[in-house]
């Protein structure tokens, strides 16, 4: 028997790996020193632990330990990257390029900068979720100082051609930032092979603790400078002041080490489970649609629309399974997912979307259970759905004149 409830929302957060907790424990208890204390053993131990973690993080992404700036998480990393570049290089130019499917931490930061007089191009994506490289080339001007395109999308798991985007940025002498939060630890990511200048990372997306993240900031070819967004004691080479979260950083490093060692085997297993979930659902249910490209995608991600079944009601039916939906009803804004909209998914189908995020601790039994529950509830709700009935009667739902004022 599977243990309920089942957690299958690993894009939102991941559980802490017990090995990570074990590594953190000494720094939550006896070794509580401040890494910035330079004149006693407590401080030295803390500093040493932080430097070890920095090396582990750098090794995961092919960087140098001195290029890792510790932050409080991905949102801060994204803010520091975009505002840091914008404010540092504003003499050089005022134009930033990003994409419409980015995380809100990027989009809202860009909108903030627009109010300060920066100009931002929000590139569209095609129906598979990809930025068009020609669109990107055409968008670059003499005033462009930054391109920010995420590596893997948090909703649909689509992985952009980061290497090609980085190459274009490099050729045009524009800095390139990528929000690599969902990708790092799941798929190979190397800042040098991919021509990345700045990259955002988050610990809790790969089995580390919440509240700690990092920004990779290239030191040479080119050397990237950032204006800090937090002022203070000058920690992290002046780019991010604030006492370091030593236990969090130690856990972050340990999580990176585990991810690096286990990624090949783990991602193959995630992929196998994801494909089992997908093929089982596709065999048993008609009119279900995958959102985003299926090939260039995070191995654990499955984002699907179940036509004629509203997402929140589906979640309610599978209430012993934790997944998420792109339906408006599940969001505070009452708007369906802007990512799905950008991919050209109609609002009717966006309301029926479910995101499954398979992670390290999910088992095959859990996948089988989830598939079974989804099939059962979708069938039940379709029997309840006037849209399903109309579609089966051969009525084209697009031709119906809906009273939308309600």
């Amino acid at each position, binding site marked *: 028997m599977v243990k309920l409830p089942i957690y299958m929302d690993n894009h939102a957060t991941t559980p802490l790996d017990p090995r990570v907790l074990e590594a953190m424990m000494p720094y939550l208890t006896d070794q509580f020193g401040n890494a910035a204390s330079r004149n006693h053993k407590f401080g030295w131990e803390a500093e040493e632990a932080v430097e070890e973690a920095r090396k582990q993080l750098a090794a995961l992404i092919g960087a140098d330990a001195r290029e890792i700036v510790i932050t409080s998480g991905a949102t801060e990393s994204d803010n520091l990257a975009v505002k840091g570049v914008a404010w540092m290089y504003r003499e050089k130019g005022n134009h930033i390029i990003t994409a419409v499917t980015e995380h809100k931490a990027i989009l809202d930061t860009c909108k903030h900068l627009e109010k300060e007089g920066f100009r931002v191009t929000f590139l569209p994506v095609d129906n598979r979720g990809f930025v068009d490289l020609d669109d990107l080339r055409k968008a670059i001007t003499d005033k462009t100082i930054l391109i920010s395109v995420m590596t893997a999308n948090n909703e649909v798991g689509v992985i952009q051609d980061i290497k090609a985007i980085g190459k274009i940025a490099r050729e045009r002498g524009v800095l390139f930032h990528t929000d690599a939060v969902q990708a790092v630890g799941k798929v190979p990511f190397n800042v040098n092979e991919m021509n990345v200048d700045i990259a955002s990372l988050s610990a809790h997306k790969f089995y580390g603790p919440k509240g700690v993240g990092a920004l990779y900031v290239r030191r040479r070819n080119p050397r990237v400078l950032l204006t800090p967004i937090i002022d203070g004691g000058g920690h992290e080479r002046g780019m991010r002041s604030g006492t370091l979260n030593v236990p969090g950083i130690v856990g972050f490093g340990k999580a990176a080490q585990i991810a690096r060692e286990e990624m090949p085997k783990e991602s193959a297993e995630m992929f196998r489970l994801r494909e089992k979930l997908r093929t089982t659902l596709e065999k048993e249910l008609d009119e279900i649609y995958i959102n985003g490209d299926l090939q260039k995608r995070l191995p654990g991600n499955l984002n699907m629309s179940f036509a*004629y*079944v*509203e997402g*929140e*009601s589906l979640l*309610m*039916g599978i209430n012993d399974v934790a997944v998420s939906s792109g*339906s*408006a*009803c599940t969001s505070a804004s*009452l708007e*369906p997912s802007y990512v799905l909209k950008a991919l050209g998914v*109609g*609002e*009717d189908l966006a*309301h029926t979307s479910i995101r499954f995020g398979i992670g390290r601790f999910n088992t095959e039994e859990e996948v089988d259970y989830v598939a079974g529950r989804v099939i059962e509830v979708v069938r039940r709700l379709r*029997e*309840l*759905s*006037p*849209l*399903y*009935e109309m579609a089966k009667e051969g009525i084209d*739902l697009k031709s119906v004149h*809906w*009273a*939308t004022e*309600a």
Partner: protein
Amino acid sequence: MAYSDKVIDHYNNPRNVGSLSKEDPNVGTGLVGAPECGDVMKLQIKVNEESGVIEDAKFKTFGCGSAIASSSLATEWVKGKTLAEALAIKNTDIVKELSLPPVKIHCSVLAEDAIKAAVTDWKKKHENGE
């Protein structure tokens, strides 16, 4: 978001699910909402021509749990009522009965609209027919 016990009960055991024949002159059909908005309700009533009482009601709903519960409750409430009594059902009654939170009030509004649309459809059939 936590659902009230009554919403969960209607979601798990929806009352009066199904369809009545649209062609039946004594059946009034209301179809409200839109797929793009994430809510569509179909509510049907069967009216006794002599007494003017709603003898049967059926619904099908595409929407969240609160939308399903609101329409399920609406069918329960209209049964046995006259058309005038059914039209007197207010969305706020549904909100109160199901303890709907503010973000779900639109579900109750839609259920009230569905009742009105079904009654209007029935009346239209009878204006033309007689």
